[in-house]
């Protein structure tokens, strides 16, 4: 509404805007109307926007007392600092109207006016205040006290580093310490030990005070905002507050010890563990993850996402990571895959890049993208470090809108549950809150008390395996046996109707899997279907399949087929066999496949993989000496090329590591105990050979997981048609 916005233009910041600037503000800002007593924001909420009061009065409750603001004042400047959270509570004392302008957009708009300077000053002050607020949560800040902290913060210098920037190098003279305000810093000692510093940690202070050399090299992982403590400031601090400095040193030693413990503990888990994914886990608010031991590699998640939104926002590609997750109190290490989908970062890299302010965050922290404001420029897609935003053709084309629009996962706002999670037949895909769910993250980085995006549809429990009804089978078998008795043959109509109804229930499964509305309706009616994913439906499908088999046996008594009825029976048993095979395969194979994988790959990538692996094997042979080449010729190449090798690997059920150990043992046997360094040197060759064999094994397993389904679907369609013809014929 006109008055809602115009009042804000009396503010000193916005007064100097020209027509274009005003138009931009109108497009990008949000008008909020509040009743008396309504809360604008509370402490801990994400801070992205400056709020301009256009009418009414807003009460800000700061630690120093309450402040009242009327039009045209503005508040909420902490949004100008990267990754800041609200520290105060603001609510409307009387019915008021606010204009919320995203901070990044405001800087863009004001850049062309004279108010840019005052905004810059306000921004600098806000950033220092945010740093002080951050430090107050650490032992260092608490020891220092608020007043001293403010004086200290005023003397620091802000630095923004791109990913991979080196802050300092080991054995260089220490000139400054750093406080990490946002992002993650990796510290590597000369012996190769790695530790990590996150938000609120102080690094390099000890070396600066001692006028020594740095003990490790510091590299930023991802974008980082750091505050440099020059040596002079450090010395003043040490003179005035030795206790606080001691706290810093103690905290950093404790942090390093803790991280080394974590490193030792996870080292045995797998090749990729929490410390490899630290940056991702630290930045994610809600992380989409696939449990590989349950995932049957059917791709339904990606398909459902593409069908719901028109363009796919999910790709099942990524590295396999082993993390310990908390599940109902128990802590279990699981193999996870993080597909490419938006993880609603706590400090989104895409948000400040958007020139039209189309990207914003809601109160829970979920990052949303307004497609009406999007111009398809792709700046957000270029900025996202995880490649989660993509450009896609616009679904509808109003005149003047761009042909392309940015899309990303938005947690399926318009539906009851995210489509990918709702459709998974084994309940393998889920959204994690790393702080809450990944145990090792808290151990590695310390506890950071912060609220994050509440992941929707996070029911962890109840995702039991697809087939877990060992107790149900005997009674059903007894039923089938009794059905096969001659008595049942005397009631063909009754058994026929039972068999027909059972078949219809089976056929309805296709509709259940396709239609989210049906699933939601069923979930509302039946309490047993609440668990995650479509797994409960699949379980009931298998059970009703066994019941249908019993009814069919009662109706036909294993007679061979003639005509439509015969074909119908044949089709049914074909379905039963393929379905049983599919269920068994879904139960047994995913865990085996996971043990042989390092990454999640899609079938279209398999073509180049063999060539790449062979290149790797031959490439690592190139510079080696004769003994290694003989080893390859006699042992490794036959091993890699044996056609039965993949089957043997599948049958043995070994993981990649175990297989590598077995092959290394064979190699060591060949060298008969001597030249142990030769054995160690051929590790690379062994890895490449095992990877080649594992490729064949993976293909076997993936084919087995996928091949039964097309036959099952075709037979189901045939069953439906033949059943209809049979019933119509019987009625005549």
């Amino acid at each position, binding site marked *: 509404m006109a008055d809602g916005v115009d009042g804000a233009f009396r503010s000193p910041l916005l007064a100097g805007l020209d027509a274009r600037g005003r138009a931009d503000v109108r497009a990008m800002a949000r008008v909020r109307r509040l009743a008396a007593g309504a809360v604008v924001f509370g402490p801990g909420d994400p801070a992205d926007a400056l709020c301009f009061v256009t009418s009414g009065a807003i009460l800000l409750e700061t630690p120093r007392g309450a402040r009242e603001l009327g039009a045209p004042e503005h508040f909420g400047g902490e949004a100008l600092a990267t990754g800041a959270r609200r520290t105060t509570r603001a609510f409307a004392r009387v019915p008021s109207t606010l204009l919320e302008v995203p901070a990044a957009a405001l800087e863009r708009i004001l850049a062309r006016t004279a108010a840019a300077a005052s905004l810059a000053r306000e921004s600098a002050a806000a950033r220092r205040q945010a740093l002080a607020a951050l430090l107050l949560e650490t032992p260092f800040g608490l020891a220092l006290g608020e007043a001293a902290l403010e004086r200290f913060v005023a003397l620091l210098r802000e630095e923004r580093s791109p990913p991979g920037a080196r802050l300092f190098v080991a054995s260089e003279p220490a000139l400054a310490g750093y406080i990490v305000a946002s992002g993650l810093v990796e510290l590597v000692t000369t012996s190769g030990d790695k530790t990590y510093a996150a938000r609120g940690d102080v690094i390099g202070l000890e070396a600066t005070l001692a006028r020594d050399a740095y003990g490790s090299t510091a590299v930023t992982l991802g974008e980082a905002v750091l505050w440099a403590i020059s040596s002079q400031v450090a010395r003043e601090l040490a003179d005035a507050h030795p206790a606080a400095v001691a706290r810093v040193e103690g905290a950093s030693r404790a942090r390093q010890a803790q991280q080394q413990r974590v490193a030792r503990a996870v080292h045995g888990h797998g090749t990729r563990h929490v410390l490899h994914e630290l940056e991702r886990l630290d930045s994610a608010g809600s992380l989409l993850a696939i449990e590989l031991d349950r995932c049957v590699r059917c791709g339904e998640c990606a398909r459902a996402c593409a069908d719901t939104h028109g363009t796919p926002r999910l790709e099942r590609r990524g590295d396999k990571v082993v993390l310990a997750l908390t599940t109902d109190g128990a802590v279990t290490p699981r193999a996870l895959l993080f597909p490419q989908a938006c993880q609603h970062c706590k400090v989104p890299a895409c948000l400040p890049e958007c020139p039209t302010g189309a990207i914003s965050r809601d109160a829970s922290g979920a990052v949303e993208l307004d497609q009406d404001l999007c111009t398809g420029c792709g700046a957000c897609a270029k900025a996202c470090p995880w490649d989660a935003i993509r*450009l896609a053709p616009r679904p509808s084309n109003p005149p003047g809108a761009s042909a392309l629009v940015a899309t990303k996962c938005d947690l399926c706002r318009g539906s009851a549950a995210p489509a990918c999670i709702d459709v998974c037949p084994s309940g393998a895909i889920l959204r994690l809150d790393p702080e809450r769910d990944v145990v090792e993250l808290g151990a590695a980085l310390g506890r950071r008390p912060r609220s994050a995006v509440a992941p929707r549809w996070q029911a962890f429990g109840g995702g039991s395996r697809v087939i877990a009804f060992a107790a149900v089978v005997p009674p059903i078998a007894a039923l089938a046996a009794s059905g096969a008795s001659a008595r049942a043959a005397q009631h063909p109509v009754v058994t026929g109707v039972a068999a027909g109804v059972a078949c219809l229930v089976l056929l309805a499964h296709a509709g259940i899997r396709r239609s989210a509305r049906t699933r939601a309706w069923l979930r509302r009616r039946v309490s047993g279907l609440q668990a995650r994913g479509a797994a409960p439906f699949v379980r009931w499908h298998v059970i009703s399949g066994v019941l249908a088999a019993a009814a069919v046996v009662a109706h036909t008594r294993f007679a061979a087929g003639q005509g439509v009825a015969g074909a119908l029976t044949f089709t049914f048993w074909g379905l039963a066999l393929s379905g049983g095979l599919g269920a068994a395969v879904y139960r047994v194979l995913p865990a085996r496949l996971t043990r042989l994988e390092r990454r999640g790959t899609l079938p279209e990538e398999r073509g180049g993989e063999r060539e790449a692996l062979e290149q790797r094997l031959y490439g690592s042979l190139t510079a080696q000496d004769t003994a290694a080449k003989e080893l390859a010729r006699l042992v490794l190449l036959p091993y890699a090329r044996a056609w039965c090798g993949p089957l043997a690997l599948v049958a043995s059920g070994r993981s990649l590591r175990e297989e590598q150990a077995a092959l290394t043992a064979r190699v060591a046997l060949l060298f008969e105990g001597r030249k142990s360094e030769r054995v160690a040197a051929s590790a690379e060759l062994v890895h490449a050979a095992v990877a080649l064999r594992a490729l064949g094994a993976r293909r076997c397993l993936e084919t087995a997981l996928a091949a039964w389904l097309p036959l099952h679907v075709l037979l189901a369609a045939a069953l439906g048609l033949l059943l209809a013809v049979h019933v119509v014929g019987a009625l005549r």
Partner: protein
Amino acid sequence: MTPATSSSSRRRRAEHARASSDVRRRRGWLLAATLGSAGVLAALLFRDGARTLASPGPVGPPHAVVACAGCHGDSGAPARTTCTTCHAGHPSTRPAHRALAAQGTLTCTVCHGGHQAESGVLFESNGAVSIYRGGVQHAVVAAARALPGVQGLPAYVPLIARDRCERCHDTRDEGDGALACLSDTAPFALCFDEHRRVATATVSAPARRDALVERARAVAQGPAARNLSGAAANALVVLFGIGVAGLVVVVDRRRRRVAPPSVRATPPPLGVRRLPVIDAARCLGCHACVDACPYDALVVRRYVAVLARPDECCGAGPCQTACPNGSLELLTSGAAAEAPRLSSELEAVNRPGIFLAGDVTGGALVRHALRQGVLAAHAAAAHVERRRREHGPAGAVDDQLVIIGAGPAGLAAALTAQELGLRAVVLEQSRLAASIVSFSRGKRVLDAAGDADERLPLFVGDVTKEELVARWQRTIRVARLEVREGVRVLDITGDARAGFRVRAECATGTGSSVSGTAVILAVGTRGTPRELDAPVAPEASAKVHYELSDARAFAGRRAVVVGLGDVAMETALALAAQPGTDVTVLHRGSGFRRGKQRNIDALAALVARGRVRLVFEARVERVGRATLEVSAAGKPLALAFDALFVHVGRIAAGDLLAQTGMR
């Protein structure tokens, strides 16, 4: 929050959403399953005829015409007793069976079955014989002759299946009477004397029936009887359905694969110079144009895009394509400098038979060069074809094309010529794709494919220049193209009628000449490296280089670089990065005058650290065998050197064009 992340953390290219195979895998399955099941039904109908649609299953051919009520009556009672309404009493000749029949236990359907269990042999009038069992009919023989001694065909002989006898008889017991009727192999009973005695061959009464029975016995023992199997027949039907479904899926996939448009797209406009003009009031400052520009000509200042280096602008327009709201437009601003006049087929107007392709025509993008190479090859092939027609079968028209320049345009032209059946020889003055090799390290080439680009030969997509050149080398090797490197073309004589003769000079100094029916000039705009004015001792000529191909080869050597442009600075930086090198840079000017800022900064840093020595106002007087005589600001200086890199500019390719009469 301060926006505008530094350029090193932002990628240059925004990915488009790709439909992975997960999304595409199940497309068409619904249609395939529907049509497959229809195929199953069709196969069933074909196999058994329309009567299979009736439930609960077909009856034998003679009884197929009888309505349900004919056997079951109005009340739907089982048809045990109604057989005798049409057939006579047919008592059994065996006393035991007669007794059971009198009790009512052994009714007609116990042996003969009804519906699924009815079996028999059908003799048609035309001599065809088929055996029937449980809905499946199997032709045995289609003999043209009628059965001897039999009139009144068609006829039907019922067969009793073995399992009907086995309901009561235990065939494992050797004393069982039924063993006399059952053979080990035939699935049917072979007695045929249940209801009347079968006459022996000598008795003539009811001969027709006996002849039929004999024939039926033969059929029941024959191999055809064993083949009647319900499960196999159903499997065949289902397999047919699978085949139909598979076909539907294949056709559907093929239909979805959009055929890309042919490569004959229009080349970019030649002869005009275009520069981007930005409407500052509408520009969003989104960096799309900056990231799309391959020459870094645009930059964003205060959230508005600005053309910072108009001299670098290629005018080809990726910036305009990338701009999301149309605030950047390419407008003509003057004629392009010195573009040769060409026809729309890229043929030189004043020298027919000579075609131009690539940067030399005035364009500036690699993918445009590829397209032009393909077009020029097509046009040259058409030219050769015309020459052949004019000459007639008498004279032999050489089918060789001479292509000058092994850059993207020349290589694309050579590959296309090969595909079209012509021979092509490529003459290159330095190395394959030399201009691309001279891009900065890790530079990304060929961003953003347009339509039809993927089918261009040599099109690779968004890769670094090193990978691009490596792939092109592999492609050229696999295609066995003849590329002669180190051959510099001096002039082109001849004309379209008589053919062309290209005179060239190799690196070693020997001359050569190549002849061809058409010539394609793809010499680019970089020209030939300019040589030093100073005399070069013959023993030292091997130490003089005009390009740095592999810096690692010079590790530990003393290298001198003459020049201070981008190429010279990058050579110096690459050499200084190798261990043990001693790098001296000589420049005739007195300061840094041009080049990319980051090169200047990096070199200045190295000079400040003492890693590289930079001598201003230096002129090379003489290149000796082991020392270089230089005059630096008037004072003589002798430098010992192992390698000398001369980067003092290039002679424009226009000279070759002028020499061949392009203008």
